[in-house]
């Protein structure tokens, strides 16, 4: 296990990993391997990110209360998936990032993906989903100030996150299938997945529109009550 004692070093790593290391792996993947290994490179990136996050998370100090809050939010987002037409994962991940910070956001996002797949079945998509939702949580943490301030911005970000999530997952599926990116195939996949994506984006926006405020209030209340 990687133990990073120095807090500032840890902070640097948490910045370096998403912005530098990952693009680097992608670049290496493109130039060194042949084109057909794209899907594998993407998978590699996802796995590396998740692993690096885990290592960083393990070494950091997390109070039991923060840990419980993350577990509660992850469980809520997965339990919510059992309600028909209800897909709260992205929204809750964003809310977690906004109110509890990027690390908790990443944790809630990747945990929700992992646990969902315990119920719905694992696949090569598991690390990829963990990565995608984790990143949504992480960036919501970075953008917490504007996201909390402007509701419009929040809703746009929510729609984008929902849409991008579906799109990225589709791209990966195509790459996995085809070995490389094929636009016509991708377009076909997009069109067939369109109703699904629209529901996804809509439910995300509706969810954030109605619940972002109340959940924020509730979270700030328990943060005071818990003394986080």
């Amino acid at each position: 296990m990687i133990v990073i004692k120095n807090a500032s070093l840890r902070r640097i790593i948490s910045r370096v990993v998403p912005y530098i290391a990952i693009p680097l792996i992608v670049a290496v993947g493109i130039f060194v391997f042949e084109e057909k290994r794209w899907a594998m490179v993407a998978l590699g990136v996802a796995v590396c990110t998740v692993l690096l996050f885990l290592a960083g998370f393990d070494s950091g100090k997390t109070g039991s209360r923060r840990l419980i809050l993350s577990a509660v939010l992850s469980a809520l987002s997965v339990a919510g998936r059992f309600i028909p037409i209800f897909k709260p994962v992205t929204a809750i991940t964003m809310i977690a990032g906004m109110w509890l910070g990027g690390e908790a956001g990443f944790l809630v996002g990747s945990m929700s993906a992992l646990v969902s797949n315990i119920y719905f079945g694992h696949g090569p998509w598991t690390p990829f989903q963990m990565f995608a939702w984790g990143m949504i949580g992480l960036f919501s943490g970075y953008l917490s100030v504007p996201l909390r301030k402007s509701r419009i911005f929040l809703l746009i970000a929510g729609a984008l996150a929902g849409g991008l999530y579906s799109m990225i997952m589709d791209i990966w599926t195509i790459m996995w299938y085809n070995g490389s990116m094929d636009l016509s195939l991708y377009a076909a996949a997009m069109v067939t997945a369109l109703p699904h994506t629209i529901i996804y984006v809509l439910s995300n926006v509706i969810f954030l529109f109605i619940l972002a405020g109340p959940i924020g209030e509730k979270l700030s209340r328990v943060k005071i009550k818990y003394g986080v």
Partner: protein
Amino acid sequence: MEILRVENLSFKYPTGKAPTLKELSFSVNEGEFVVLCGATGSGKSTLLRLLKRELAPLGEKSGSVCYGGRSLEQLDARTAASEIGFVMQRPEQQIAADKVWHELALGLENLGESQDVIRRRCAEMAGYFGIAPWFDRETSKLSGGQKQLLNLAAVMAMNPRVLILDEPTAQLDPIAASDFIGTLLKINRELSLTVIIAEHRLEELIPVCDRLIALDCGEIVADAPPREALPLLASRPALLRMMPAASRLSMALGLETKGEVPLTVREGKRMIEEHYTNKVRSLPAKTPVAPEVNALEFRDVWFRYSQKGEDILRGTSFHVKQGEFFCILGANGSGKTTALGAVAAINRIFSGKIKIFGKQLKDYKNGTLYQSCLAWLPQDPQTLFLRNTLREELKGAEAEAAMLGLDLVKYADTHPYDLSGGEQQLAALARVLSTKPKLLLLDEPTKGLDAASRERITDILRRLRDGGMTILAVTHDAEFAADAADRCALFFRGEIVSTGTPREFFAANSFYTTAANRMTRGHYDGIVTLPEAVEICRLNGEAKA
């Protein structure tokens, strides 16, 4: 040997006006079984939490708590965490892990113990507490009693020397509660473990404890073995009403000065038979108020949750008359709560008929059933709350809140979750009463309530009934049913096996009955509540010794 010493302990919450605890001093010896009692708000939970460093509330504290001769603050983190164990009220929420074995291991993992130590300790705990058969199970699949036993075992795995329990049986049914107390007694006797326990229901604890510490408004009013402590509480009704029925009876009859205070049913029975004749064997029967119109008819109802599941209701039939208070008693899993759900149209019945005020349940369309007809008070009032303050929560139910005696001015801006259990229940009741129901359904209305809240809710329900409301309650609480109900019924395996007025019902039962009935059985007939017992004893007069 002294293990815990509290000296001049005072405590005030940052938001509170008056101190919660005032200059408390006492000490506990190793191996003692101490019961801490006090009404809600007496500060007993605060005191217990101050004895456990990790859970100590924030606020102004003065005085000291010493463990093994050292101040609690001076202990190293490991000792503080492992040697003082703490078990709380809600079995469900204390469990942190998904599997039983992991829950047992959790504390030892936190202490950084090695795999081998944890493996051995888990095996020991599983064996000692009889957990082995469900060692691999998921914690969510356990019953309430098993969950609380697991919580106890998980704390015991860390080898504590002092065990502190804050109302551990409040959320359990009576059978699970006495099993739990039995286990506590066993570890106290066999391992000489020091136990400090706070509890609402003391019927079973007082007879077995070594010492009773009574708290009233943040002060210790009694600290002695139970027989000596009880007479000191004679002038404090709030404390007295939690005591065992036998002790309350003796004190109501003014016998506490003559010999020892009885603690158990056996001692109570002996006391009655020694001191009172039985020339008058029974009290005159109350004239039953009998409006012969049925408010609820339940005829040959069958229900199961899933196609392949077992039948939960097997041709259940009963009726509740208008203006009647009807109580259904029965063990866990007997189907009584399911029957209540069927009346509230939450469980759709498979066959049979349910009529409410003469109209079939299925003919109530578009939610008309829930508008000024039927209301349901769920077991967990928190399932009803939607808002952040009590004022918003009870909008439109202000009159009901006032009628129930809920202080809306004081609590207006309080979050419903910050109210005490009893007040949460009143708030929920106000909410459901605001639809002006004619039939009120209650699921375990006395669960987890202290004696004062229990009396208050009993009183309120009686008043509602007198105002013409029909009430159907499902409960484990025989004393409550005897006090409040007009008729009681026993549920077993999805059927009603007996019904009757409390007097007929409890007098005919031998096991499932009230303490007052057990004490007077054989000497008097048909006595089921404590006031009745007091009355008949007085009527007969003291025997000349």
